[in-house]
C-alpha cells in the first residue's frame, strides 16, 4: 500500500497543482467579469513550452530548475494526502521545513546563472519574503509540535481526528489564524506577488526561462501552491480520511487564497515584510506562549 502511495501522491500533487493553476486563472477571470481560459489551459501552455527551443545559460541553469522541482516532489512525499504519507516514518515536519526552502533556492541558483538584473531582483525579493513568512511559520509549527508532542505530520492528523481539528481548539486557533494570514505570502499571490511581479520586474526569477525551463518552473509553481495549501489542511484542519475529502478541503483554502488575491493590490516588498513581522508574527507568538503555558 505504501509503495502505491509513492507513485500516487506525486501524481496527485501534479494533477491537483495543474488544476489549481487553471482554476486560479478561471477564478480570477470570473471575478473580473471575464470568460477566462479553459480549465486545461496550463496543460496547453506546458505542451507548447516543452516543444519550443530555448537557450541555456549554463549547467547550473539547467540543474537549478530540476533541483527545485525534485525537492517539491519530495516534500509532497511527506504529506498524508488523505491516507498515509509515503515517508511518514522519517523526519516529518522538521524535514519538510528544510526541504521547503530548496524550492526557491533551486530557482535562485538557476536564475543567478542567467545574470539578468530582473532575475536578481526577483530572487532577492523571494528570499526577503521567505524571511518574512518563515518567522511566523516557524512559530506556528513549533506551537503545533509542542501541543501534540510529535514531529510527525501523520500523528498530528491522527490526534486531530480523535478530538477537534486544531483551528477549532482553543490555544491553537491563534496558530490557525496566523497561518491564514501568511498563506497568500506562501502561495506567492497578491498582495505578496512581489516576486513574480510581471509589470515591475518582468516576472522576476522566471524572466530568463523559456521553453522547457518555463514548463518546469510552472509545474514547480503549481506544486508550491499544492504544498502550501495541503500543509494547512493537514496541520490545522485535521487532514482527511480519504483523498476526495482532502481535495475538497484544499479547494476551500484555495478559494480563500485567491479571493484575497483578487481583492487586494500588490504591496511593496518592505511593506510586505513589515506586515508579516507584525500581525501574523504577533498572533503566532501569542499562540505559542499559550500553548507553552496552558498545554493540552
Amino acid at each position, binding site marked *: 500500500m505504501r509503495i502505491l502511495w509513492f507513485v500516487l501522491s506525486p501524481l496527485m500533487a501534479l494533477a491537483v497543482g495543474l488544476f489549481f493553476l487553471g482554476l486560479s486563472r478561471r477564478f480570477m477571470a470570473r471575478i473580473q467579469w471575464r470568460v477566462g481560459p479553459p480549465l486545461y489551459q496550463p496543460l496547453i501552455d506546458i505542451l507548447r513550452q516543452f516543444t519550443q*527551443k530555448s537557450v541555456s545559460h549554463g549547467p547550473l541553469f539547467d540543474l537549478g530548475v530540476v533541483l527545485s522541482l525534485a525537492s517539491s516532489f519530495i516534500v509532497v512525499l511527506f504529506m498524508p494526502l488523505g491516507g498515509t504519507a509515503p515517508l511518514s516514518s522519517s523526519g516529518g515536519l522538521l524535514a519538510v521545513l528544510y526541504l521547503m526552502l530548496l524550492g526557491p533556492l533551486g530557482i535562485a541558483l538557476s536564475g543567478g546563472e542567467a545574470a539578468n538584473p*530582473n532575475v536578481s531582483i526577483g530572487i532577492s525579493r523571494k528570499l526577503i519574503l521567505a524571511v518574512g513568512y518563515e518567522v511566523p511559520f516557524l512559530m506556528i509549527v513549533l506551537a503545533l509540535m509542542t501541543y501534540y508532542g510529535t514531529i510527525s505530520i501523520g500523528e498530528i492528523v491522527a490526534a486531530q481526528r480523535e478530538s477537534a481539528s486544531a483551528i477549532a481548539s482553543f490555544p491553537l486557533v491563534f496558530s490557525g489564524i496566523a497561518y491564514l494570514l501568511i498563506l497568500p505570502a506562501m502561495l506567492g499571490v497578491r498582495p505578496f506577488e512581489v516576486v513574480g511581479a510581471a509589470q515591475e520586474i518582468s516576472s522576476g526569477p522566471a524572466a530568463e526561462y523559456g*521553453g522547457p525551463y518555463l514548463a518546469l518552473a510552472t509545474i514547480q509553481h503549481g506544486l508550491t501552491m499544492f504544498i502550501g495549501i495541503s500543509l494547512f489542511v493537514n496541520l490545522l484542519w485535521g487532514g482527511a480520511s480519504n483523498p476526495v475529502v482532502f481535495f475538497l478541503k484544499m479547494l476551500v483554502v484555495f478559494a480563500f487564497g485567491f479571493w484575497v488575491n483578487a481583492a487586494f493590490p500588490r504591496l511593496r516588498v518592505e511593506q510586505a515584510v513589515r506586515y508579516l513581522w507584525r500581525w501574523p508574527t504577533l498572533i503566532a507568538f501569542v499562540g505559542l506562549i499559550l500553548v507553552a503555558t496552558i498545554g493540552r
Partner: protein
Amino acid sequence: MDRNQLMKWIKAPTKMAHKYSLNAVYFCTGCGVIEVPPTITSRWDAERFGVVPTATARQANLFLITGYVSVKTLRAIIRTYEQMPEPKYTVGFGSCTINGGMYWDSYNTINQLDKYIPIDGYIAGCMPRPEAIFVAVTHLWTLIDKDMADGYKRYRKNYAAYRANQEMILGEMEWPPIFQTEVATAITEREG
C-alpha cells in the same frame, strides 16, 4: 475554433498547443498602446483564446508590433525577436508596419518592417479596433494549421539578407550574428 475537438489534439498535439497558447509580447511603439489594454482585460478578454501578455521575450511565442517603428526602436525589436524561442510568430499592427503609413517620408522611421524581421501577418488600419487583433489571431490559427506561419524559418534561411538590411539602417550592430551563414561568418571575421 477547434480547441475542443479531441481528434485534432491526438493527431497534431504540437500544432494545436502552439495555436491555443499564444503568449504575446506587445511591442507598443507609440500608437496602438491604447488598443492593447482593453484587448487583454475585461472588455474583450483575449485570455479566453489563450492569448496572454508576457513580460519577457523568452516566454513568448507571439510578437505584436503596434504602430510606427523608429530606427531606435528597431534595434530593440530585432533584439526581442531574436531572444524569442522558436517557433515564433510576428504580427504587424497598423499601416505603419506595412508601408510606413503616415510616417512614410519621416527621417527617423522605417517603412517596411518586413525587411528587417519576418512578419507572418499584418492588421491594416490606422489604428485598427481591438476586434482586429482577434481577427488576426484567427487568421494566424489558419496559417499555423497550414504550416504557412513560417516566419522564423524564413529568418533562419534568409538570415544574411535580413542582417544586411538591419546593418544598412542601424550601422554597426553591437551583437554578433545569431545564425552561422556565409555572410555572418564574413561579418564576424571583419569585426575580428
